[in-house]
């Protein structure tokens, strides 16, 4: 057991992937968010199990067309975002700028179609328990998409100002991870809200 100093003078201050503490921090946030969505899903299923008719009498089954379209848009929005992210890894700032911009536009499209869907719905959050949980899940997820949009606008502004490059892209990477999370988490919610009343 000979003592011997560990010299760290030559170690880098840049970390990508699972090296950096921030990566683990983001994983923690995603875990928390997953439990939040999990609790909402569990609540929905609990309510559903206790009822004979679901949605309750007088409320129509959710329509499929519009939600399916905007779900597809949201899923597809991961592509330009991914393109932008990987662009900046190659120092391609243009890909980043446009990738983000397209991503934002698609997310806004998602929100707009959702707004149209909900403006046309004949029940509210205070109509019955079904309304409460559906509005809560949709609203909560939409809030996430909204914050994606806001965050990405900031990122994009920085991108247009030429702030990011292959080295300085931590913010972009994290934004990307979060983006894909919000997209992926919508998939079970979509099936829960739009398909489960037909199948369960």
């Amino acid at each position, binding site marked *: *057991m000979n003592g011997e100093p560990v010299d760290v003078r030559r*170690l880098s201050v840049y970390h990508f992937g699972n090296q950096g503490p921030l990566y683990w921090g983001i994983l923690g946030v995603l875990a928390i968010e997953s439990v939040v969505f999990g609790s909402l899903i569990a609540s929905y299923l609990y309510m559903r199990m206790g009822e004979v008719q679901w949605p309750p009498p007088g409320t129509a089954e959710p329509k499929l067309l519009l939600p399916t379209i905007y779900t597809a848009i949201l899923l597809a929005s991961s592509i330009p975002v991914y393109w932008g992210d990987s662009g900046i890894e190659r120092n391609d700032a243009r890909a980043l700028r446009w990738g983000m911009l397209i991503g934002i536009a698609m997310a806004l499209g998602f929100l707009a179609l959702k707004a149209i869907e909900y403006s046309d719905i004949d029940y509210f959050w205070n109509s019955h328990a079904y309304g409460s949980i559906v509005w809560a899940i949709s609203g909560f997820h939409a809030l996430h998409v909204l914050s994606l949009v806001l965050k990405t606008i900031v990122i994009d502004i920085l991108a247009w100002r030429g702030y990011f490059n292959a080295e300085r892209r931590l913010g972009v990477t994290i934004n990307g991870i979060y983006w894909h999370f919000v997209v992926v988490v919508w998939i079970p919610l979509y099936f829960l809200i739009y398909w489960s009343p037909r199948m369960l």
Partner: protein
Amino acid sequence: MSSPETAPLHDPAAEEERQLVRTWRSPTGFPGWFLPVNQREIGKRFIVTAFGFFIAAGILALLMRVQLAHPRLEFLSPDLYNQFFTMHGVTMMFLFAIPVMEGMAIYLAPLMIGTRDMALPRLNAFGYYVFLLGGLLLYAGFAVGLAPDVGWFAYPPLAGAEYSPTLRADFYATLIAFIEVAALVAAVELVVTIFKQRAPGMSLNRMPLFVWAILVTAFMIVFAMPAVMVASMMLALDRTVGTHFFAASGAGGPVLWQHLFWFFGHPEVYIIFIPALGMVSSIVGTFARRPLFGYTALVLSLIATGFLGFGLWVHHMFTVGLPQLAMSFFTGASLLIAIPSGVQIFCWIATLWMGKPVIRTPLLFVLGFFFIFTLGGLTGVMVASVPFDQQAHDTFFLVAHFHYVLIGGSVFPLMGGLYFWWPKFTGRMMSEKMGVASFALLFIGFNVTFFPMHELGLIGMPRRVYTYVEGMGWDNLNFIATVGAAVLTLGFAVTLINAIWSWFRGREAGPNPWNGDSLEWATASPPPVYNFRHPPVVRGRWPMWENPQPEDRVTGLRPDRREVLITTVLDARPQGIAVLPGPSIWPFLLALAVCVAFGGFMIHPAFFLVGFFAAFAIVVAWHWPGEEERLPPWKERTRE
């Protein structure tokens, strides 16, 4: 080693220390209060604030005990009593027990793993302000007669808008969600720090047990707290915008709340308990003067407790009328969790048995813990039985159970830990005589207060009653309990006096007064602002006992900015350097914004959006480049 101020200028070591102090010190003076981000500063604040809330909640308990000392006393009105027990429970659970454990973890864990600060220091500060503001808001409500009065688990419909029309239950619903943010932040923070910043050589299987306990606790927080946040936001929505999550007529109903609450509520009690187990391990090893026996068994027990803790929640709902078979399953799971608890207790006993124990105050508290916690655990096993619980549920028997486990399992180790680490916190020793006196008073006072409650419950006294009629046979036992509470208070008061006395008069402690085994003892007491001039390198499980070599050090961290070493998750091999941010006002402002979102929500839902956008703006400002410009350009990947 001479102190940096008096050392000659050309001494490079002294120069480095001066430089480090300049880099790491926190601003002082009034506006400076809102800026510090250093882990020990934040940890200390958590601990002190939490003890403040402990005294407040303890005083409420004393007043309740006075009211119950005799049948039909009119010392407290039913209205006040209901607010008191709710505030007592909420404060003890959410504003004392969890935050104080977080505080100990935030202060000690980075020292124990040999790093200079936590991974995300500003987030850490943010967590503290959330906790502080949430607590203050709750007590502000109390001061104007708006304290919640529906019990700490706030079952609807009683907590719903119809039966609790005032803002009281809103204070509960929104502030619980708000305060949990602090716990979640601290949890993420601790996981990242423990995973990524351990001293070189401290592989996972060399981590001190306290750090293991904190790691398990942090994971439990991450997986339990969101459930109660969701539930309390649903309750808040039911109350403010008329949703039907918990309406009796709706599909969810009151029982949904119970599931969601206890899915969090059961892990919650282990979140309070597991860090205490870590403290017991630290104390037992040190005072047995030998390495802990059964390190692996202890770690596995902690992990097992953490996992099993998520499968027990229905044991709080045995009288709801659920199917027998389902309930038996939860009985089984509740009994199973007794085994890891037992394994740990017997490992500690074995350690003492194999060692040469020296009995000092911290160890006394651990012995007290053995007795009280075992008793409380055994009554826990009893109430895990469905038929027995049908009698014991919601009676003083249960009140006895949970004070035995909470105080015996958590507060006693915490007191032991306080005596144990006090010299590290302050650089001075506490008085051993007063320590022993405090222990004796607490041990006797505790048992006199809470033991009679077992019988009270069995002879029919429900909990949460502000009074009772004559002739029930409850008078004497209640009176004894009240007298016990006075003794108990005296015991806490002696420790408080001891702490104040020691602050001014205590003997100098030196870096390692107890000959402890882990790294917090490797630095001065109290540690310098940068914790370690040269962070240690670890070559075994008990670094301080393994002939530490002066050369076993990390060198090459720059003193002119806040640098910490990053290591790999499993083996703690050096991997990189992180440059941490310094003092900042943003965490405080962000906490204020989030506070507006949650606090304002009680009055109008629109406040939530205001807070949301304000918080967003602050986050953008917080992260706006300028921060990252602290880093050198890419070309100089290495930092010479």
